[in-house]
């Protein structure tokens, strides 16, 4: 049985990064500050745990009446002039957006951060159709220049040092060497200002879509989403269907919680609600606004009541930040759009269980993700369920026989008695083949010691003591 290429890639990259001390130091530094700020911020809540329950309740309500809320959202925002396009998959979405760009005579597209756009490779599709695409989020801009995917849902360039970023800017932008984050940020700001003023189309995601008022809500810190959605003639927002919430007031709790869980902020610098293109009487704003509602297998998660709550996700990234696996293997090893625990849970639904089941195995099941999730997604149990689903009817050959043998031995005391000395023998010889292909359980023992069998089994000890007449009395004394 050969592992799929996705799994081989994960094991290779994870193994490499896990031993990279520089990577470990970067992660520790970046996340250390995050933990402090997050805890400080959480402590200000009257009751963070109750807030989580309330936030989960809002998303439960939204997701479990998704049809109703989506229709209301689409009708309300269309009534104010936005064009709504429902896309079954990435191909439909990108074809539509490329068509809007073509018919609008678009040359330059400026993008603000959208993971949903990443998911459907929107930038690549637009570039192939001959449009220039510029990422405006600083982190995304940096990884775009390096032709890398984002490293983290929320912190795309967290794996790079200022030195590496300066080197990238020098090479790609011809800018002078810059020594501080401040200087580097100002270089990017300058480049981007020119792009903003020239772009014909702005692309954004949405963190929430409000049914009651027909608005999308965009959360950001830099101001690039505000510029991308207001300066260009055309604004396209790509919105996963699970982003809908029933009421505007729901944002009163979700916006602060998203920022607190994701970045330890009371709320992010800009939270913008958009309810249509430029309205009569307005002095600015895009002439056209397009909302692309994307399914792309989300209805598959919806159809699994056990894991439906995975659609509650508000992409705060908190579960990545606390995950021992993410911290050790980094974001690129996953090979997915969505990294970390939530990525391991949903990628099998989005892209096929057999090719992505290894991600659910790459977990200590410590539950840190579940504990931190602001919308109470039962992440680590979902990983366990994925493991179960992956082996149902398709257990690995070796594992199947291992368990059969185990059952056989456990049911027959005589065989079991025989197994004890065999086990001792195995313990003796195991180290000889520990890291060689001869070892059938090397995946397990490569990084762990095989437990030592005791010199004597309990039964043998018991028998010995009974045969020595004084022993039981001594025990009782």
């Amino acid at each position: 049985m050969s592992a799929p290429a996705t799994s081989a890639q994960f094991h290779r990259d994870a193994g490499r990064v896990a031993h990279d001390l520089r990577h470990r130091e970067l992660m520790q530094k970046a996340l250390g500050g995050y933990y402090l700020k997050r805890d400080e911020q959480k402590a200000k809540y009257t009751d963070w745990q109750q807030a989580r329950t309330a936030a989960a309740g809002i998303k439960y309500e939204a997701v479990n009446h998704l049809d109703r809320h989506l229709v209301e959202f689409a009708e309300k925002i269309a009534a104010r002039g936005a064009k709504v396009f429902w896309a079954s998959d990435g191909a439909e979405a990108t074809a539509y957006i490329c068509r809007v760009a073509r018919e609008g005579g678009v040359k330059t597209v400026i993008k603000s951060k959208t993971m949903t756009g990443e998911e459907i490779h929107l930038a690549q599709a637009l570039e192939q159709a001959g449009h220039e695409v510029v990422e405006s989020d600083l982190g995304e801009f940096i990884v775009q220049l390096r032709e890398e995917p984002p490293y983290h849902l929320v912190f795309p360039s967290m794996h790079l040092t200022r030195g590496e970023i300066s080197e990238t800017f020098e090479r790609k932008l011809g800018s002078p060497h810059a020594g501080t984050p401040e200087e580097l940020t100002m270089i990017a700001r300058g480049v981007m200002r020119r792009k903003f003023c020239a772009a014909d189309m702005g692309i954004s995601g949405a963190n929430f879509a409000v049914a009651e008022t027909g608005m999308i809500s965009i959360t950001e810190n830099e101001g690039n989403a505000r510029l991308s959605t207001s300066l260009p003639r055309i604004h396209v927002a790509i919105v996963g269907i699970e982003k809908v919430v029933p009421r505007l007031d729901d944002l009163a709790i979700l916006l602060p919680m998203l920022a607190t869980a994701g970045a330890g902020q009371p709320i992010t610098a800009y939270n913008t609600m958009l309810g249509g293109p430029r309205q009569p009487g307005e002095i600015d704003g895009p002439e056209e606004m397009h909302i692309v509602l994307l399914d792309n297998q989300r209805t598959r998660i919806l159809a699994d009541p056990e894991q439906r709550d995975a659609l509650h996700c508000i992409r705060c990234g908190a579960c990545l930040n606390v995950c021992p696996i993410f911290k050790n293997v980094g974001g690129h090893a996953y090979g997915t759009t969505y990294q970390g625990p939530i990525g391991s849970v949903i990628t099998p639904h989005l892209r096929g269980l057999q090719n992505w089941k290894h991600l659910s195995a790459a977990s200590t099941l410590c539950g840190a993700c579940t504990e931190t999730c602001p919308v109470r997604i039962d992440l680590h149990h979902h990983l366990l369920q994925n493991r179960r689903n992956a082996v149902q009817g398709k257990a690995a050959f070796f594992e199947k026989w291992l368990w059969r043998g185990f059952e056989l031995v456990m049911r027959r005391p005589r065989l079991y008695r025989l197994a004890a000395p065999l086990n001792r023998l195995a313990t003796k010889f195991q180290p000889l083949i520990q890291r060689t292909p001869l070892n059938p359980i090397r995946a397990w023992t490569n990084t762990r010691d095989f437990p030592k069998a005791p010199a004597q089994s309990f039964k043998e000890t018991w028998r010995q003591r009974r045969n020595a007449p004084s022993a039981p009395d001594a025990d009782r004394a």
Partner: protein
Amino acid sequence: MQTVPDSRDRILARIREALQAPAPRRHLQTHGPAAPADGSAKSPEAWLPPVPADREGRVALFAKNSADLKTEFVRCANHAEVRARLDALAAGAGWRRVAAHRFAAGEDAINSLGLPVTWTDSGYTVPDIESADAAITGCDCLVAQTGSVLVTSRSAGGRVLSVLPPHHVILATRDQIVGDISDAYAAVRRNHGGEAPAFLSFITGPSRTGDIERILVLGAHGPKRLTILLSDES
């Protein structure tokens, strides 16, 4: 552009079929304390950071949050002081031209600067706003809980003015302070009647990024400085 056939009906059919099977309300069952058993469910905002009920307490909280956020928050006794503070800002930073819109609490103060002003009210060009030294706008309200300012396309001179120039100055009055975001939405409903503006934005501190080594840098794309001049006189 003509309407293009899409997958609306197919997606809705898939959703409806998927929802045939109910999902457990696991967030109520297996984690943490449940909501009060007597059904006295408070509004969810009750779990957020507490906000004083009185206006003075709210102003104090807003001032404290502003300091944390690196917003320059200046309390002024009356409109004359606002005018003086605005003059001082202009002189201190050497403004040569500002962009603004016309609003009751601000127009006089802006005019009294004696600087060229690009007014956005009857249309503008992007380079004119881009090259202004500061933007001066009004707002709908100030949110004590988060230190945010709520601007809308109607209260802040459009969608672009409050984000493009390097320094954003907001002129507000004490009676615009509200408790939390819910209150802010209520204020928008009050200020604008049935149909809310198509652009609302909570601005919380100057534009920022932490994308390089998670080190805070102000002025990523939007203003590097955010100043709020709050007048006690309404």
